[in-house]
C-alpha cells in the first residue's frame, strides 16, 4: 500500500483533466492505497457550498480524504461549511506529507 497526496491546483472548468484527476484519486484509493486530495489555488473553488462538487463527492465516496489550502480558501472568500467534506489545512500539510514518505503529485 502506498500513501498519496494528489495536489489539484485547478478547477474543473479550467481543464477536463481535473475531473480525471479526481477519478484517478478514487482509482488509487480503490486499489487499497491511502489517498488524500489537497486542493490549492483555484482548485478550492468547487468546495464553496452551492458550487458543483459532485465529482469531488464521488472521489470521497471511494475513500479519498479531501483537504483544501486554508490560504486559497480565504483568498477566494470561501467559508465553512465546505462542500464534499473538505477539511482546511495550512500549506505546511503538504510539506509534512512530503516528509513522511507520501508520494506527492502536483496536477
Amino acid at each position, binding site marked *: 500500500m*502506498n500513501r*498519496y497526496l494528489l495536489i489539484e491546483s485547478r478547477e474543473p472548468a479550467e481543464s477536463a*483533466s481535473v475531473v480525471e484527476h479526481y477519478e*484517478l484519486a478514487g*482509482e*488509487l484509493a*480503490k*486499489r487499497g*492505497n491511502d489517498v488524500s486530495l489537497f486542493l490549492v489555488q483555484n482548485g478550492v473553488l468547487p468546495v464553496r457550498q452551492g458550487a458543483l462538487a459532485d465529482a469531488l463527492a464521488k472521489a470521497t465516496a471511494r475513500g479519498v480524504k479531501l483537504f483544501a489550502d486554508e490560504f486559497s480558501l480565504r483568498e477566494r472568500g470561501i467559508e465553512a461549511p465546505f462542500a464534499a467534506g473538505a477539511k482546511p489545512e495550512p500549506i505546511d500539510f503538504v510539506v509534512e506529507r512530503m516528509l513522511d514518505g507520501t*508520494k506527492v*503529485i*502536483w*496536477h
Partner: protein
Amino acid sequence: MTKKVLSIVENGFRATLEEQDDTVIWFAHVLKGAGAEMTVLLRGNAVNYATKKQDPSGLAFGDRKQTRPPRIHEDLASLAKKGVAVLAVHEDVGHYGLKRDDLIPEVELVPKTRVPQLIDEFDRVWWW
C-alpha cells in the same frame, strides 16, 4: 541509488516551436544520460507527440527562417532507443482520432486502467 521515475507528459505543444523540442522530453533525455531510471507516459493531448506525420517546418519571421524545427516523434524514438519506455494512453490516442499505425513503433499503448497501477509501481511520479 536513483529511484524509478514515472514522467507523465499531459501538456503537448507548449512552446515547442521556440524551444525546438518538448522541454520535458528533452529533460528525460538528459536525466537518462545522467543515470536516471525512467519511464515516460504520454496522455491527454501529448499523445499527439507520437504521431509520425508531424511537420512544423517552414516557420519564418521576416528573413529569419527556422532551420531546425522540432522533431518530437524522433526525440521520443531516440529516447526509447536509450532504454526509456515510452508509453501512451490508448484511449487518449483514440480520442484524438489516431490509430496505432499513425504512431511511431517505439511507443507502447497502455489502457487507461493501467495508469493507477503504473503510478503505484514507481517511486517518484512527476506529472508535467
